[in-house]
C-alpha cells in the first residue's frame, strides 16, 4: 500500500538558517504529493502540491521538488522565520486509485528560535 516517511520528528533551528524537511514515499501509481502545515489548534493548511517531475512549486518562500527517481518530495526554505514554527505533514494522493484519499506521514515539528 501507499506510505509516506518523514524521518525527523522534530527539527530545531535558528532564525535565518535554511530549512529542509525530508519526505519520501511509496506508491503503486504515480501520486500527487502535498505539504500541509498545521499551527497549534488550527486546521492543516495546504502549503505546496506537486506538479510534474522536476517542476518546483513555491509558496511563502517554501519550495519542494518531486523526484520520481528517488521517490522524494523534500520541503526547503532558504531562511527560516520564527513564524514558520509549526507541524509539517507530507502527504500523497494516489491518482491511479479510485478515490484519492490522502496518506499522511507522521509529521515533522519545526521549531525556529531567535
Amino acid at each position, binding site marked *: 500500500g501507499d506510505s509516506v516517511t518523514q524521518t525527523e520528528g522534530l527539527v530545531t533551528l535558528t532564525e535565518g538558517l535554511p530549512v529542509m524537511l525530508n519526505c519520501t514515499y511509496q506508491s503503486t501509481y504515480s501520486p*500527487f504529493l*502535498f505539504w*500541509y502545515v498545521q499551527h497549534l*489548534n*488550527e*486546521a*492543516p*493548511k*495546504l502549503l505546496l*502540491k506537486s506538479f510534474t517531475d522536476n517542476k518546483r512549486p513555491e509558496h511563502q518562500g517554501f519550495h519542494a521538488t518531486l523526484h520520481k527517481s528517488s521517490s522524494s518530495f523534500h520541503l526547503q526554505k532558504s531562511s527560516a522565520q520564527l513564524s514558520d514554527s509549526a507541524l509539517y*505533514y507530507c502527504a500523497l*494522493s494516489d*491518482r491511479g486509485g*479510485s*478515490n*484519492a*484519499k*490522502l*496518506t*499522511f*506521514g*507522521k*509529521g515533522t515539528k519545526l521549531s525556529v528560535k531567535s
Partner: protein
Amino acid sequence: GPKVLQIPSHQIIDMGQMVTLNCDPVSNHLYFYWYKQILGQQMEFLVNFYNGKVMEKSKLFKDQFSVERPDGSYFTLKIQPTALEDSAVYFCASSLDRGREQYFGPGTRLTVL
C-alpha cells in the same frame, strides 16, 4: 481561502453514548473525507464520500461508524456506541475532485470517558 467548518470544536461524552460530528464543507466541493488523529500521532484516513455514497473506508472505520450528508446539509460522522479508543481529534476535509487538494476543518476533539 476556502473554509471548512466543524461543529462542535470539543465534545466530551460517556462511553456507550452516541455522538454526531458535523462538518460544513466548501460549498462547491463534491468529495468529503474524515480523518482521525490520536494525540501525538499522524492523521489517518477514515472514510470518503461522494454522490451520497461511501467510496472507500479504512479498517479504522468500524461498524459503529456511519456517515451521511442528507440533502446537501452537514456532512456528519456518527459513532454509536462510542468506545474509549474513539477519543481523538476528527478532521473533516473536502475537495473539488478526487486527487485535488483537500481543505481541512479545524477538527473536533472527542473525549470518551
